[in-house]
């Protein structure tokens, strides 16, 4: 009973706002039975929000969702699943300690008089796996003993057992090896042949070409284009639809002198960590801002944390100021003048219940102390100086840090390294969740630090930010540095091409 090109799902002007952000700003989109509909967009374009609205995690603020021709309003993920929309998230939501069969039939186990009928459950699970072409997965095996690819199949099996008609897959290939991706595509084709629609999210253009039917490009919470043919739309058009953000940031000017002439401050040689990144070599000079562009999962954050000693490398070495840094020791890194503002401000950087000044002096309070006794007056004075320097608002350093806005919290995290003798600053997504005004101030601050001779290594998902702020840019893809160039020789298109496709499209190659 293939429904041909019947429309299963139609979104009209869907809006979802969060305090301060319009995450979805009127998205319209339709999904037909049996198609693979690809969603494309940069980080922050609204893909995740859209998925969550579709799967009932968020409630939309405005707009309409039609499901099988009827207006619906999914109150919960359960409701969406019951209607036939299943979502396979990147971090698979399987119960690791339960068996394959239990996971596939989780929540609708065959039962009689309150007792789960285990035999029947195993038979049903076997049937589902056979339909996916994987009868070899043992249904009684505990899920945490399966490889990632098999877990994904179990996750798809669950959707199938629920008789889902739309399957949303959020970057399913990110956890898979090359030949496993081919197998994934084979399964997707079988599902679509039986009339199921797949909403496929990926950053890899070549995958979209291979498996996709139609493409919708999201930008700034809107569909920049929808229903593009996946196979024939040129890369150049897709990339240009994704780029050109509406908000223009003001970046500080680069200094005229080339810091690259100086002695290297940080030298990384052949650094690698299995499964995260491999053979990374880079240098940062004092006074230089080096940006790393790459997707989430490209190994960039892991690289930063490894340089900082928060992770232990499997290969390679880090030198700072000509001296080799002890691997795997944050203490050694901090003592040699390295500071890091980590990716997750709240979970990795701040003591949220403590006053601002204690957060600013978290790495340095021992230096103000005398014989083990802290000198809070001196700490407060030093923190107040930093707060004034960063134009922290409110200025009072005795306030509890959780009462500050995101931008001001980030200033506290960066400000921590203005005290002490920081020579090299590692910044991981320094402007995530920071409003526009505070962003400009942070950019000024970072540039001023560099002008004072600090070396900066910056990671950001926002390509314009890397290009606008950095002197030199490294592009990372799947754990490797694939390109390096001065920022002024690159543009957003070129970098996005490199990030997503691994090479510059022919007409985009920039002649140096």
């Amino acid at each position, binding site marked *: 009973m293939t429904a041909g090109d019947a429309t299963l799902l139609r979104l009209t002007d869907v809006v979802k706002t969060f*305090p301060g952000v319009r995450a979805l700003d009127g998205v319209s989109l339709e999904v037909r039975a049996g198609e693979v509909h690809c969603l494309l967009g940069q980080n922050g374009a609204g893909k995740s929000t859209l998925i969550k609205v579709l799967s009932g995690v968020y409630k939309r603020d405005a707009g309409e969702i039609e499901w099988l021709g009827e207006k619906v309003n999914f109150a919960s993920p359960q409701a969406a699943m019951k209607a036939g929309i299943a979502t396979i998230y990147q971090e698979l939501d399987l119960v690791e300690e339960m068996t394959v069969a239990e996971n596939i039939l989780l929540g609708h186990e065959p039962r009689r008089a309150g007792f789960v009928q285990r035999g029947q459950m195993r038979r049903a699970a076997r049937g589902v796996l056979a339909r996916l072409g994987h009868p070899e997965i043992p249904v009684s095996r505990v899920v945490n003993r399966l490889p990632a690819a098999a877990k994904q199949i179990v996750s798809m099996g669950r959707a199938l057992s629920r008789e889902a008609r739309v399957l949303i897959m959020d970057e399913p290939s990110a956890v898979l090896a090359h030949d496993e991706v081919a197998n994934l595509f084979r399964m997707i084709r079988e599902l679509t042949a039986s009339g199921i629609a797949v909403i496929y999210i990926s950053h890899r253009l070549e995958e979209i070409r291979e498996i996709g039917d139609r493409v919708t490009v999201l930008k700034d919470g809107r569909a920049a284009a929808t229903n593009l043919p996946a196979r024939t739309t040129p890369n150049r058009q897709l990339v240009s639809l994704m780029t050109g953000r509406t908000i223009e940031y003001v970046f500080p000017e680069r200094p005229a002198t080339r810091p690259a002439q100086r002695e290297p401050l940080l030298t990384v040689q052949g650094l690698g960590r299995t499964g995260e990144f491999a053979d990374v070599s880079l240098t940062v000079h004092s006074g230089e801002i080096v940006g790393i562009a790459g997707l989430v999962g490209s190994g960039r954050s892991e690289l930063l944390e490894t340089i900082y000693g928060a992770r232990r490398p499997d290969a390679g070495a880090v030198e700072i100021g000509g001296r080799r840094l002890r691997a795997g020791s944050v*203490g050694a890194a901090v003592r040699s003048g390295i500071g890091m503002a980590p990716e997750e401000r709240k*979970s990795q950087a701040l*003591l949220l219940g403590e*006053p601002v000044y204690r957060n600013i002096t978290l*790495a340095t309070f021992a230096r103000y102390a005398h014989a*083990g006794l*802290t000198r809070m007056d001196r700490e407060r004075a030093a923190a107040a100086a930093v707060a004034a320097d960063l134009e922290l608002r409110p200025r009072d350093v005795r306030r509890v840090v959780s009462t500050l806005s995101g931008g001001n919290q980030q200033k506290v995290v960066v400000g921590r390294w203005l005290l002490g003798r920081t020579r090299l600053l590692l910044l991981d997504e320094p402007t995530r969740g920071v409003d526009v005004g505070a962003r400009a101030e942070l950019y000024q601050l970072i540039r001023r630090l560099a002008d004072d001779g600090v070396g900066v290594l910056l990671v950001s998902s926002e390509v314009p930010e890397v290009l606008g702020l950095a002197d030199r840019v490294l592009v990372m893809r799947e754990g490797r540095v694939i390109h390096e160039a001065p920022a002024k020789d690159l543009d957003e298109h070129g970098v996005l091409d490199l990030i997503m496709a691994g090479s510059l499209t022919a007409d985009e190659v920039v002649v140096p």
Partner: protein
Amino acid sequence: MTRSEVAAPAATPAPADRRPGWWQRESTEPVRRNLGLIGVLVLLVAVGAYTRPDIYLNSDLAMRNILTILTQASTIGVLTIGMTFVIIAGGIDLSVGSLVGLASVWCTTLATQSYGWGGMIFAAIVVATMAGLVNGVLIAYGRLVPFIATLAMLVAARGLAARISAKRTQVNSVTEINNIAETRILGIPLLVLIFAAVVAVGWVLLNRTTFGRRTVAIGGNPEAARLAGINVRWQTLLVYGLSGLCAGIAAIMLVSQTNSGASTNGEFWELDAIAAAIIGGTALSGGRGTIIGSLLGVVVFATITNLFIVNNLPIEVQNIVKGGIIVGAVLLQQFRVGGLIRRKP
């Protein structure tokens, strides 16, 4: 020219640097909580004054009764100070009661007694501190969950104490030790003064030293502490050592009170210490707690016990009341935290 109506953004009242009154400031939260505990204490005294005015309102007896309460509180109070550090650091120490038993037995063996009072104090403190450090090593470097590691120590230390003492109560004949409980300085029992000294040292340690700052940091956000260059494991180890040290001090105090050491000493004291720290406002999730709060928690419990004793009420009922107070205090804390979150826009 058309006049466009632009909705001027409502002039936001400058969040500015106008500081809120002290009673609204987040930084005074612990102080306000402690005032609440003092309120509870006043209430308990009022109950005492109503039910036994002959004791609570008699100037002579009242003073003596207060010193009795504080003496009662002193031993568990010392444990509570150590426990406060452990909980603020994000852990829990279930072994302290057992360590009191073990240290009391170890320091009252005939062999140890032959070294005199100095040898006994040394033995009690070293044994308990070492056991605390073992907890610390298991948790910080063996990556055991604190609950499991200290539960194992609870069982093992109790067993070791029973083994050493052959399950007999060991009478202490070193008079200097026995005299500790009898000694008064300026009318105040030495046990109370020891407790006061531990409280004072604990307060300075927590609020005025890098040790205290690191303790709060590793409990409040271990990842942030680690990424700021703090040696989280080493600090964890030290904190459990400190808790063991407190158990050693408490063991000496107990031996002086009972003139003996026994493997059953200090049973369930870990629970009293945890309860006192918690009603004193120490957050089980770590990163938050005060020494003064824990002191008040201990005194509140001791006062409840006293009220039951002076009114000749059965001990079982007292435990029911204590349980109720623990739940009430934690509910109150959750309510406050919830209020704090909701207050944000």
